[in-house]
């Protein structure tokens, strides 16, 4: 038998459930309906940003009743291993197909400073889509630097460190079905 490294259940590290699984389900259904109504008679290309937005996009696209294409992007984040090498954002995974002339809906898990999304918007606009809108599950406006117009928003949340439903801390907790506040002692330094 291989060595087993014990890990506490992810939910044990959650101090408070901020948004329950049921609340997420209802909100995603509502957003899917709104988007479907707004794009009635058209197809939309959902562009999701890895990795945090994956669960949200997976649920959202199934809540939509219009033709949908999906694509995925991944960009380096400040503080990651690529920071020191270039000092600039890098596209780690680009779109798989052209979005020229298409109606694009960026699907984001959370908008915090707005810096990443601001960069993505500039990048995607350069690819000449017919339109770009933004759908975000969570908005944390407390530390916003770049004002972003969010076309479809799930929840505005307080200034807490949240994980779950795609959101991570150290790449963990993404699999939680709810959004919770991480216990402070797990990330506060001594």
């Amino acid at each position, binding site marked *: 038998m291989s060595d087993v490294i014990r890990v506490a259940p992810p939910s044990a590290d959650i101090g408070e459930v901020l948004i329950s699984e049921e609340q997420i389900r209802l909100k995603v259904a509502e957003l899917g309906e709104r988007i479907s109504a707004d794009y009635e008679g058209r197809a939309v290309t959902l562009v999701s940003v890895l990795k945090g937005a994956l669960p949200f996009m997976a649920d959202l696209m199934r809540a939509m009743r219009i033709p949908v294409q999906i694509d995925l992007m991944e960009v380096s984040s400040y503080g*990651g291993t690529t920071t020191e090498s270039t*000092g600039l954002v890098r596209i780690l995974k680009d779109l798989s197909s052209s979005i020229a002339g298409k109606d694009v809906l960026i699907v984001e898990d959370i908008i915090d400073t707005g810096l990443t999304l601001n960069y993505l918007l500039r990048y995607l606009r350069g690819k000449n889509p017919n339109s770009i809108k933004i759908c975000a599950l969570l908005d944390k406006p407390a530390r916003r630097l770049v004002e972003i117009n969010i076309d479809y928003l799930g929840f505005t949340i307080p200034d807490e460190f949240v994980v779950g439903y795609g959101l991570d801390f150290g*790449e963990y907790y993404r699999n939680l079905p709810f959004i919770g506040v991480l216990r402070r002692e797990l990330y506060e330094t001594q």
Partner: protein
Amino acid sequence: MTEQARFAHASEAELARILDYYGVAWDYEPRTFPILWNTDGKVIESFSPDFYLPELDLYVELTTLKQSLVRRKNRKLRRLRELYPDIKIKLFYGKDFRALMLKYGRFDLAASLSGLEGQITPLSVRQPKLALTVPAVAASADGPTGAAFEAAPIVAARAPSTRSRPRVSRGSRRRRGRRAFLAARNS
């Protein structure tokens, strides 16, 4: 951009690096706003926000001092907003900056760039507490949860001082300078 500026606090250098990283143009303390005048009409107090982001038409002020010490800064900010209502300014408190560093996996900087510590000491390297709750394999992986972070050099920040007297904040230096100037003028 970061290379040319002289920052008063390590947190400012870090924010400059973040802005550079995401391609957001910035100027460091490009403008000083008079906020208080004496009866002769001379400016006796002013405020220079740390950053101006021209593409966003936004000023950003970082206050990484302890919450109890930011009252004066808050007062100046209120005064600025009263006198210059068209100016957009965002104040980042210490807790905001620490949260930003946590978001980017900079656990060491979240701890070491706060308050006076960020002004007088080299960046210390601390292990995230996360190591207590994640598998040991994570500690060997690259990335935010990896082993001790290399604290990025503070470009153009103050060199470590050898003097025994602790450095004082920029505001204190300005006040001291102003008092010296007024004393010299009146003597």
